[in-house]
């Protein structure tokens, strides 16, 4: 499991180099990687292009019987899937999700909301694998400024710009 997570971390680092939120994800079928991807929100200018979604698209392209494939895969991702990705994964009956650090902003596996009860499916969710490494990457990103984000809406008092 740690080996797979290390692989994801490498993907996440690549994302970071490209100025993306560093998240990496792989889909395993019988311990073999069938899809790997990273976050590319800024490059595509599509805020829904998360690593998990990219992997799902790859699998749908690659396999005709994607429906059955998804019911057997293990999803490994460096950061807790967001509410959107978590609900997509549950709607596909993914049996196992393994993630590193939790996501206090968007987490859909309990951090902000637990999406699982909304779907009549079961899912084995493992968290905390190499979570410090995963978190460190995120922190490096958020310390630098997101080049695509608009300026903050927070009003600065007593400051005339």
């Amino acid at each position, binding site marked *: 499991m740690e080996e797979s997570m290390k692989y994801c971390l490498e993907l996440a680092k690549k994302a970071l180099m490209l100025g993306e939120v560093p998240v990496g994800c792989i889909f395993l079928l019988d311990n073999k990687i069938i899809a790997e991807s990273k976050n590319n929100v*800024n490059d*595509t*200018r*599509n*805020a*829904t*292009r998360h690593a998990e*979604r990219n992997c*799902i*698209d790859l699998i*749908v392209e690659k396999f005709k019987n*994607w429906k059955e494939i*998804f019911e057997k895969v293990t999803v490994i991702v460096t950061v807790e899937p*967001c*509410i*959107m990705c978590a*609900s*997509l994964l549950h*709607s*596909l009956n993914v049996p196992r999700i393994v993630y590193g650090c939790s996501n*206090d*902003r*968007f987490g*859909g596996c309990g951090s*902000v*909301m637990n*999406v699982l009860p*909304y779907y009549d499916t079961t899912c084995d969710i493992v968290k905390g694998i190499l979570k410090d490494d995963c978190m460190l990457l995120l922190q490096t990103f958020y310390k630098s*400024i997101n*080049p*695509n*984000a*608009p*300026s903050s809406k927070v009003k600065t008092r007593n400051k005339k710009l």
Partner: protein
Amino acid sequence: MNANFNQSNKKLKTTRTSLRAPIAVLDDEYYSSIIALTEVYVGKVKNKINIRDSLQELKILFPMPYSLSHLKRVRGNEILLTLVEGITKEDCLNIVKTKLPGFEPVISSCNVPSQSPKTKSQHKEANLYWPCNFHPCQMIEKFICDDFFTNDEIEKHYEYMRLAINTAKENDSHVGVVIINPKDNVLVAKSFDQRYKNPSKHAIMMALESVSETQRILYPHRQSENTSNVTEKVKIDNCEINNISLKKPEDVLPYLCTGYDVYVTREPCIMCAMAMIHSRVRRVFFGCTSKNGAIKTKCKLHLLRQLNHHYLAFENILFEECILLEKYS
């Protein structure tokens, strides 16, 4: 009483426009008519004229609990002392007898609203128990009375929803979506459900995809690292733009779906509702509810406080036609 209210409301509407205004989807707390109560001790002053002096002492002896900060301290000659929880009646009475000479030596317990009222009607109701402080939110009041949109706006919403319905019909789909930039009433994207091809290709996801595609084509240069770079780039590209004052980068380049309105024939699922939060959509209008809906039916995702962006959601535009689309599939 409720029926009466609706009727009078409908009469109002007919004088405005024949179309029903979209209904805002707000937090349940704005609609609830049940006032939650909590028990407090109440004392009486002997002489109302001296109430001010007593209040000074009261602030020290019985500081107003934070959880009751929405309540007024005084009702006539009655004064709110403290929560029943945490002190026995005898102890409380003792303090009143020994330290508050302006008070009559009796106390009683009384039910008061435990939460601040959120709307004018809740305020009215809560005041029956105990007077409350309340500042109505103009926007919320207008939402609740369906008085938020002007006639022209309502007609526009119907027009765009019809576009969404037509998009679905033209493509034999059960869901249609259009995204509009309300600043200049431009159709930014339209799409329909294609989940048979790919499980993530719900209508809304497709529309968001198409918005990002358009932006990639129209603005091929990546948004640059800071504001000054943006101004420089624009200067190089076209000298005339030089004169326009560029305050923020978003004045030049659109950022995701900031400021856009989404019209979708049925209530979005959790995935799509969250995707629109990620994309910073401004308002979402949907025709009918759906069993997996995440804006009204199963949860109210757009009201989750922890999230970094929130949009307004409205329902009930061309409800009947949107429901029919569902039945087609």
